[in-house]
C-alpha cells in the first residue's frame, strides 16, 4: 500500500541497519550547515553515488525526488525576486537578485543531496528494522514502542478508511465544499477514531494475555561485521572530506 519497494537487493542492504541509520544521521548533520557551493556539490555527488550503489527502481525513486523538490520549486519562485541584493536581471517590475539565486541554488543542491543519502541508506530498510535500529541507538523504549506499534497499525487503519470511504461513495457521496460534505467526512473520521480506540484496547488486552512485558523483539538479529565498520569509516571519511571543502576550500564568489 504505502511501502512500494524502492530498491533492488544490493550490498548496501547487507550493511547493518544500525550502522546505516547512524551514518545517515551523521551525514545529514554534516550537510545541513554547509554554505559553500563546492562542498554542497561534493555532497550531491556522494548522495548520487550511494543512490546508484543502492540499485533503486529508478522510476519510483525519481518520482519521490520530484515530490521532495516541490518545496524547492516554491523557493525558486519566491526567493530570487524577494531577496534584496545586487540585481542580476530584470523581469518587468521584478528584479532578480544574485544573492537570492545563490541561496535558492544552494538550498536545492543540499535538499537533493540529503534526500539521496536518506533514500539510499534509510529508506531501503523496513519500518520494523528502522524502529529496532533506533531502539539500539538508545532512543527511549516507549518511543520505539510507539513507533513500531503505529507503523504496524497504519496499514490496518488506512484499509479501514478505504472501506469507510468506499461505502460512502457507493451511497453517492462526492465531497464538495459544503456543510454536508464536511459533516460526512468528519463523521467518517470520527468513526475511524472510535474504532481505532476500541481496537487499541482490544490489542492491549490481547498482548497482555500473551505475556507482553513492555518491548517488542526483533525477528532480524543485529550483527556488526568488519565490513560494516569499513562502511562506517568510509562514510566518516566522506563527511570529513566534505567539511574540509567547506572550511578550507577554494575562495569563490
Amino acid at each position, binding site marked *: 500500500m504505502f*511501502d512500494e519497494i524502492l530498491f533492488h537487493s544490493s550490498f548496501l542492504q547487507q550493511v547493518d541497519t544500525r550502522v546505516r541509520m547512524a551514518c*545517515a*544521521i551523521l551525514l*545529514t548533520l554534516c*550537510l*545541513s550547515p554547509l554554505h559553500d557551493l563546492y562542498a554542497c556539490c561534493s555532497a550531491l555527488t556522494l548522495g548520487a553515488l550511494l543512490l546508484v550503489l543502492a540499485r533503486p527502481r529508478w522510476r519510483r525513486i525519481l518520482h*519521490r525526488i520530484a*515530490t521532495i523538490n516541490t*518545496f524547492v520549486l*516554491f523557493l525558486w519562485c*519566491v*526567493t530570487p525576486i*524577494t*531577496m534584496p541584493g545586487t540585481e542580476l536581471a530584470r523581469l518587468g517590475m521584478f528584479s532578480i537578485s544574485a544573492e537570492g539565486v545563490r*541561496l535558492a541554488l544552494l*538550498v536545492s543542491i*543540499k*535538499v537533493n*543531496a*540529503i*534526500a539521496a543519502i*536518506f533514500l539510499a541508506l*534509510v*529508506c531501503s530498510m523496513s*519500518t520494523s528494522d*528502522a524502529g529496532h535500529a533506533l531502539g539500539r541507538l538508545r532512543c*527511549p523504549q*516507549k*518511543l520505539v*514502542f*510507539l*513507533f513500531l*506499534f*503505529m507503523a504496524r*497499525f*497504519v496499514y*490496518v*487503519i*488506512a484499509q479501514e*478508511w478505504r472501506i469507510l470511504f468506499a461505502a460512502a461513495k457507493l451511497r453517492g457521496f462526492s465531497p*464538495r*465544499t459544503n456543510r454536508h460534505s*464536511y*459533516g460526512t*467526512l*468528519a*463523521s467518517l*473520521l*470520527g468513526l475511524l*477514531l*472510535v474504532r*481505532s*480506540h*476500541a*481496537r*487499541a*484496547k482490544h490489542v*492491549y488486552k490481547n498482548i*497482555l494475555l500473551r505475556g507482553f512485558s*513492555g518491548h517488542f523483539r526483533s525477528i532480524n538479529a543485529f550483527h556488526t561485521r568488519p565490513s560494516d565498520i569499513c562502511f562506517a569509516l568510509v562514510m566518516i571519511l566522506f563527511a570529513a572530506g566534505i567539511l574540509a571543502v567547506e572550511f578550507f576550500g577554494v575562495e569563490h564568489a
Partner: protein
Amino acid sequence: MHIAEGVLSPPVLAAGYALTAAGTAIGLRRLDYDRLMTAGILAAVFFVGSLIHVPIGVSNAHLILNGLLGVLLGWAAFPAILSALALQALLFQYGGLVVLGVNTFTMGLSAVGAGCLFRFLHHRWPTPGGRRIAAFLSGAVGVAGAAFLTSIALIFSEEGFTAAASLLFLAHVPVMLAEGCITMFTVDFILRVCPEMLTTQQQNHERIGHA
C-alpha cells in the same frame, strides 16, 4: 507544512530538536503502557489523516489533524506526532531526519496548545454551542500555530525567506477554516458515540499489571 531537509540553518534545527526532546519527554512521562497503545493507534490515524484530502473551493488540501490529536491526547500528542512524522519521512520522504525536530515541534506545540484551549473553553462554556466553538478553534489553532511556527523557523534561518514564509502562512488560512470545521464535527461525533475518549485524559488509569 513539511520543510525539506537542507533549508533551515543549524541553530534553528538544534533548537527544534531541543524543544522537541523536551516536549516528547513530558509526553512520554505522562503515558503509561496502557495509554501508549491508544496513543500509537491515534498516531496511526494522524498519519492516515494526512492522506485524506478535503475539497476547499476549487482546490483541495490534506487534513493535518494536529489540533484534534491535541484535544484527544494532550501532551502525549508530542511523541505521537514525532513517531508519525518519522514514519512519513521513512515512507514518503516528507521532511527528513534532521528537520524532524523542527517539524515535530511546530505541529506538536500547536497541538498541545489547541488541546489546552479546547479544555479551557469547554470548561468555561460546557454547552453544546460552546463545545462546538471550542472544537472549531482548537482545529484552527492547530494549523495556525503550526504554520506560524514554521514561518518563524524559516525567517530565523535566512532573512531572504521572509516573503516565502509569509506566503506559506497566508496559503494556510483556508486550511485553518477547513480543519476547524472538520475538528468541530469530529469532536461532536466522538462525544455522541464514545464520550470516554475525551475524558480519559483526566481519569486515572487502572494500570493493568505493568511494572
